[in-house]
């Protein structure tokens, strides 16, 4: 009820043509200042033209041909659009404000607002390399991305990098890890996990884990919705709408990969290697833990390398919150964290600047103890990535 003593403030505003950001919400005022906030899933403009100077010989030629293709007027010939988004272009009737590609200046401007203290940069355009059919092409793109990002974003205050590796080219992945591990700003090895077949627990990928563990770099699995690939668990041809692809692509892939990595004994073999999952939400985490435990009782002899129930290994994984599901009650997140023991492993992630990016208000909506909120907003990420602040 308005009180006649209430202050009244009237502001003339314009419609937003870019999606609103945390700094556009003044609802928390000083409240966020007391936290060290690490945004563990941030994307900058990594469209392919940036990679061109880093690709030699026939790969360079191939990329030039890609860049010359006229692709529905989308900016900078997007690999993602080339692969799948075209299937659904226009389906949202331009309802969304357009997501812009974030330049370095945009990133710095966002950080200068002082809400986000650290940003971990993940690939966007390179996420399909998990299922590009030609492993050498995928490897060349990964190398170019890593070099470009290291050149453009190392030594930028508050900015840390995920290098990307193609699971299709294991030897190349190992050499990329070894090449970049000594850069203090490189804090994780990102594996694009959608469409990767066989799934990531398979022995063929173990050298990647061995190298990451030896270099003290945690592994981050990052999905993509553009499921053009023909592999389990989901194919683009299953769905008439992007909403369905988007909703299920990330968590189903993640469940599959978590199951595979754990059941194949990777955490037993590489006990010091940390894993996290990005961009798949978190409500499914208790499901996969307890679902696997149930089957483990009966089928344990198939998994003799495991020394504990699957859930014990999974409880050590870290999780980026994006897209953080909005549960009906403010106390529900706390219950969810109890179910998967996620207080020390859940990390706030926005996916900025993509359309579906989360605002901090999505986390602040929930009732949480202040120390848990501080962990999710930053402390858990600092533990996971192991950087000094």
């Amino acid at each position, binding site marked *: 009820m308005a*009180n006649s003593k209430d202050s*009244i403030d009237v502001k003339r505003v314009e419609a937003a043509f870019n999606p609103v950001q945390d700094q556009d919400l003044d609802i928390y005022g000083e409240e966020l200042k007391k936290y060290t906030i690490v945004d563990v899933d941030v994307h900058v403009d990594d469209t392919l033209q940036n990679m061109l100077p880093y690709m030699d010989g026939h790969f360079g030629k191939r990329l030039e041909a890609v860049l010359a293709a006229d692709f529905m007027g989308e900016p900078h010939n997007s690999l993602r659009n080339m692969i799948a988004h075209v299937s659904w272009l226009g389906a949202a009737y331009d309802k969304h404000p357009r997501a812009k590609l974030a330049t370095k200046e945009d990133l710095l401007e966002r950080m200068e607002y002082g809400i986000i203290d650290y940003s971990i940069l993940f690939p966007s355009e390179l996420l399909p390399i998990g299922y590009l059919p030609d492993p050498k092409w995928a490897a060349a793109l990964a190398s170019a991305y890593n070099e470009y990002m290291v050149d453009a974003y190392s030594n930028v205050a508050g900015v840390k990098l995920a290098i990307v590796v193609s699971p299709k080219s294991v030897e190349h992945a190992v050499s990329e890890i070894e090449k970049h591990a000594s850069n203090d700003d490189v804090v994780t090895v990102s594996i694009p996990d959608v469409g990767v077949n066989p799934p990531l627990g398979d022995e063929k990928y173990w050298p990647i884990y061995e190298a990451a563990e030896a270099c003290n770099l945690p592994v981050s699995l990052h999905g993509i919705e553009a499921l053009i690939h023909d592999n389990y668990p989901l194919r683009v041809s299953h769905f008439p709408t992007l909403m369905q692809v988007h909703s299920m692509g990330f968590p189903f892939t993640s469940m599959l990969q978590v199951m595979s990595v754990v059941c194949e004994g990777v955490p037993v073999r590489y006990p010091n290697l940390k894993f996290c999952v990005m961009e798949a939400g978190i409500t499914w985490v208790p499901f996969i833990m307890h679902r696997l435990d149930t089957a483990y009782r009966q089928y344990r002899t198939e998994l003799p390398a495991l020394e504990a129930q699957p859930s014990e290994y999974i409880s050590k994984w870290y999780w980026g919150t994006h897209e953080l599901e909005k549960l009906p009650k403010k106390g529900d997140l706390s219950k969810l964290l109890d179910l998967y023991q996620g207080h020390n492993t859940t990390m706030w992630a926005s996916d900025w600047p993509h359309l579906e990016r989360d605002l901090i208000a999505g986390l602040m909506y929930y009732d949480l103890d202040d120390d848990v909120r501080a962990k999710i907003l930053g402390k858990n990420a600092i533990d996971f990535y192991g950087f000094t602040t």
Partner: protein
Amino acid sequence: MKERNGKRRVAVAPVDEFPPGARLEIKVGNRSIAVFNVKGEYFAIFGLCPHQSAPLSRGRLQGTVVCNEHTNWEKEWAHDGEVLVCPGHAMEFDLRTGKAFGYGMKLRTYDVIVEDDWVTVIL
């Protein structure tokens, strides 16, 4: 702020300074309200999106797609210009009723009148 019949009235702008197409974000205490002039008709609606609190005063006004008994379960474009699209992640609200399209929820709407040549929101 004036009061009549127990309702509080907040004069927000002189009529001639609030033309069609304009919008205002008003804060009364800590309550946000978004006010619009759509082709000469005034609308006021609760100003924070229930999803992640984006300011609805900055949402675009568009139409949307409907599919129901009245359209014979075919998709049709409807409500052109009167659907407030959240600038956060595009939840859509009917500016007339506050109803969120596709959700069983409704935002509060407020009457708007012109009084002494001022656009006035009734709380």
